[in-house]
């Protein structure tokens, strides 16, 4: 290590780089950023424009915001005055009126929240037992956790679907939640975290006469908040955005649609693609997570990178 100490000052003096290379780096990164942001630009812009502006590609980013005549409204028998609409208002109100978007969002919240709560309820005690209790078969249980980490739930969707159908559970909230109740990844993560908690803390709690249950929820849970937050973000993002599983188990009942299914329904509509309201729906669905991400970036990055470890 002494070599490094000697070398250090020399390198720092060379640390200045030509502004040219910095400029090139920024140029490359800016081009990349423009490509990455392009669909977000398209999405927001279209959600602000009127149908003629979209089809003729005029009006720039915001559109002219001039009122236009809604043909669908005329067909239903509205007078021309009634059918004059402001593009933004039209797009967003149609998004909420044509489909029960509020209901979909509520379903999304119900499903993601229940999944996360049940995952914690199951995983936390198990992780505590694996980390801090000695019992017969502990290694075997942990081995099984490691094995189950190999199984992506999406890959076994078909047999799960058959099993749920046999139980008569398709088209229920239960079907949306059940396959995700067990997060072996959550168990693994929490177990690794609990391994670092000193035994003294638990012994002290036992001395105070706390039961093992109390220790899990009143001692271990508070210490695990950082790991739990990261896990919460990982879990919420995965299940709010999940399209595959709801698509399989929710077939007819629109009242159970999650936001991604609601958006998909918009697209398959018979009266052609009505881009403005469709993009408004996309904005409404994408915004909550993106805003949360912008507000708490570091936590989100931690949480999502956990996905990789799954």
């Amino acid at each position, binding site marked *: *290590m002494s*070599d490094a100490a000697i*070398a250090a000052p020399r*390198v720092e003096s060379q640390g200045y780089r030509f502004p040219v290379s*910095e400029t090139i780096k*920024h140029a490359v*990164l800016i081009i*990349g*950023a423009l*490509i*990455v942001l392009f*669909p977000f630009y*398209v*999405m927001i812009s279209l959600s602000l424009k009127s149908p003629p502006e*979209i089809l003729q*590609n005029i009006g720039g980013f915001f559109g002219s915001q001039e009122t236009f005549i809604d043909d669908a409204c005329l067909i239903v028998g509205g007078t021309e005055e009634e059918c004059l609409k402001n593009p933004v208002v039209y797009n967003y109100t149609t998004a909420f009126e044509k489909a029960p978007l509020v209901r979909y969002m509520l379903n999304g919240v119900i499903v993601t929240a229940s999944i996360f709560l049940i995952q914690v309820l*199951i995983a936390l*005690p*198990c992780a505590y*037992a*694996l980390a801090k*209790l000695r*019992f017969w078969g502990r290694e075997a249980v942990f081995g*099984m956790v490691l094995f189950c*980490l*190999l*199984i*992506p739930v999406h*890959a*076994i*969707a*078909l*047999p*799960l*679907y*058959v*099993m749920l159908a046999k139980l008569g559970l398709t088209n229920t909230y239960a079907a949306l939640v*059940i396959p995700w*109740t*067990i997060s*072996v990844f959550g*168990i693994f993560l929490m177990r690794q975290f609990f391994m670092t908690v000193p035994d003294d803390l638990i012994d002290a709690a036992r001395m105070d006469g706390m039961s*093992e249950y109390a220790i899990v929820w009143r001692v271990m849970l508070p210490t695990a908040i950082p790991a739990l937050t990261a896990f919460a973000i990982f879990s919420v993002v995965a299940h709010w*955005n999940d*399209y*595959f599983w709801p*698509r399989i188990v929710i077939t007819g009942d629109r009242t159970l649609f999650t936001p*991604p299914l609601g*958006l*998909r329904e918009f*697209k398959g509509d018979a009266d052609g693609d009505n881009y403005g309201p469709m*993009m408004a729906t*996309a904005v409404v*669905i994408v915004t909550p*997570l993106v805003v949360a991400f*912008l507000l708490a970036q570091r936590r989100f990055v931690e949480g*999502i*990178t956990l*996905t*990789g470890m799954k």
Partner: protein
Amino acid sequence: MTRQAARGHAHLWFVGPALFLMFAILLLPIAVAAGLSVTDYGLGNLSNEFVGLQNYERIFTRSTYEKMFGATFRYVGVVVPVSVALGLGAALLIHSLGRMGDLYKTIYFLPVMAALIAMAIVWEFALHPTIGYVNRGLELSCGTVLERLSFFAEGCDRTFPLWLTDRDTAIWTVAFIGVWQGFGFNMVLYLAGLTGIPRELYHAAEMDGARSAWERFRLVTWPMLGPTTVFVVTISIIRSFQVFDMVEAFYPQGGGPSKSVYVMMFAIYEKGVQQNLMGIGAAITVVFLGFVMVLTLLQRRLIERRTHYV
């Protein structure tokens, strides 16, 4: 003593629910899939005959499944190397910029957060052959100097590529969107890897005569990122094998022009859920699980070996 006894049983309550759910939700379905894959089962069917390995035989002989493997491997073959390389490139550039790189990091991570189904719908509009932003943008080049290039000349003469609706370009366009969505995730993993490289190593390399940035990268950065790379590559492979949302949104029927985008997850969905051919769907599931498990095990081996080595 009685409290001791209560403690002695606590682990059963802690581990029991998790153990039960692991069996019921993760292990049992694998057995169910394996069982169904040798039958001609369908939900609601009365007959449920044992057909031996016939389903597997079909998968490896019929042209439909040849297309399925073709589309899946093309997608994986493009998305994995490109998204890993772009992730590494972005991470290196951003890392070298220090705090100034944070904004790029935020931007590149946005697609990871946004619901893919929503962004897929946006891309579909942007890539629309006539009214999409991409081809409208390309048309602007007509009559300019760019028209000398054969790509633009041909586009202006007849039409620009149809992107998602042409069987020659569809799978590559879908792969592009896959890269767009996923490389920010790899970038974050690489950034974490880069911060873990001790500065002294660069100093030491410099002492040994590694003057150029390329030499430092070859001698220090790349070897030190070894475990991260193994990890990133495996994760990318597993994630891209599971591509579904886009394919279903673009091509609800049949998997794209001439089935050129008929990827495995879509095949499972189409055969099993839409057409109620559970036997064949289960057989694809088993093959799919085989791929994923072998890859994950391989990754664990490689990482273990690498970490011993480093």
